[in-house]
């Protein structure tokens, strides 16, 4: 729905309420009846979607682009962090296997922090603590992050090549194999599990407080 559509509907709703109040209803009752007559938000957005197809798809495409840029920015940042963590472990003198494990652990921690903060942000938007429009500041930080992420992954890769010998890292070069796929799936599952478990305990806490 465009801004003008919303203004038009609001004007309609106010007029309808004013009429009902003039007939002797209380403002609250008038609002309920007027919004019932106007139709449910679901039905309204469905009907407006038929007319404003272009507008709706423009919004969707922007969000898809936003997700794509964000996803790749975060992925490269986290890959860089994981590579640096792995290289540091190798530099300290631990074995090749622990180098791989440290990289995986770094990835899990990074993605978990990201999902967790997104979830928290979403909840704050829902409860109205943040204005939804203000969350578009994310776009600027995403662009900055994608630059930073690429720099970080270049540093990480250079460190990895110079510090981790191929023999040492051979066993943990997992991302091209089927085993690597399984590990990646496990990483995602672990992230989700951590968020769900942590979220549930938080929920119980808030319920107890309430």
């Amino acid at each position, binding site marked *: 729905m465009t801004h003008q559509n919303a203004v038009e509907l609001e*004007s309609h709703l106010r007029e309808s309420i004013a009429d009902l109040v003039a007939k002797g209803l209380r403002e609250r009752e008038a609002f309920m009846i007027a919004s019932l007559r*106007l139709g449910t938000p679901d*039905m309204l957005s469905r*009907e*407006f979607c*038929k007319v404003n197809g272009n507008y709706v798809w423009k919004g969707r495409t922007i969000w898809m682009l936003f997700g794509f840029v964000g996803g790749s920015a975060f992925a490269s940042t986290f890959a860089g962090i994981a590579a640096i963590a792995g290289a540091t472990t190798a530099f300290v003198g631990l074995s090749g296997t622990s180098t791989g494990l440290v990289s995986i652990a770094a990835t899990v921690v990074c993605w978990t922090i990201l999902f967790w903060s997104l979830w928290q942000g979403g909840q704050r938007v829902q409860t109205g603590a943040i204005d939804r429009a203000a969350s578009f500041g994310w776009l600027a930080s995403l662009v900055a992050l994608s630059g930073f992420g690429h720099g970080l992954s270049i540093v990480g890769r250079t460190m990895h090549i110079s510090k981790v010998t191929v023999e040492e890292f051979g066993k943990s070069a997992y991302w091209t194999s089927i085993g690597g796929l399984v590990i990646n799936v496990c990483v995602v599952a672990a992230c989700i599990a951590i968020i769900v478990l942590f979220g549930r305990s938080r929920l119980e806490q808030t319920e107890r407080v309430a």
Partner: protein
Amino acid sequence: MISRELIAASTRPLVLAVLSKGESYGYSIIQQVRELSGGELEWSEGMLYPVLHRLEQEKLIIGSWKESESGRKRKYYRVSASGGRAMATERRQWLAVHDTLTALWDSKPCLT
């Protein structure tokens, strides 16, 4: 009460007909149709606006923002020249349906 399908089909000619009487806005169009139909035509009010916008896109009606008496912004619509022609077509079609049904329902059964 008129069925949903019939209401959906008749919205377009009704809007054109109301606007051909003069410039009007969404809420007022709904009020006029409700009064004229004696409450038989009960629109789900939000449905009218997408219809108005569709007609505006097809250039059958022209919309313009104006200030109402209360100082609130309000969008007024009026029929364009092609809107007038579209209404004439709609009128012919609806009258054809009406005449056919009337002829069928009013005719005496043939006893021979």
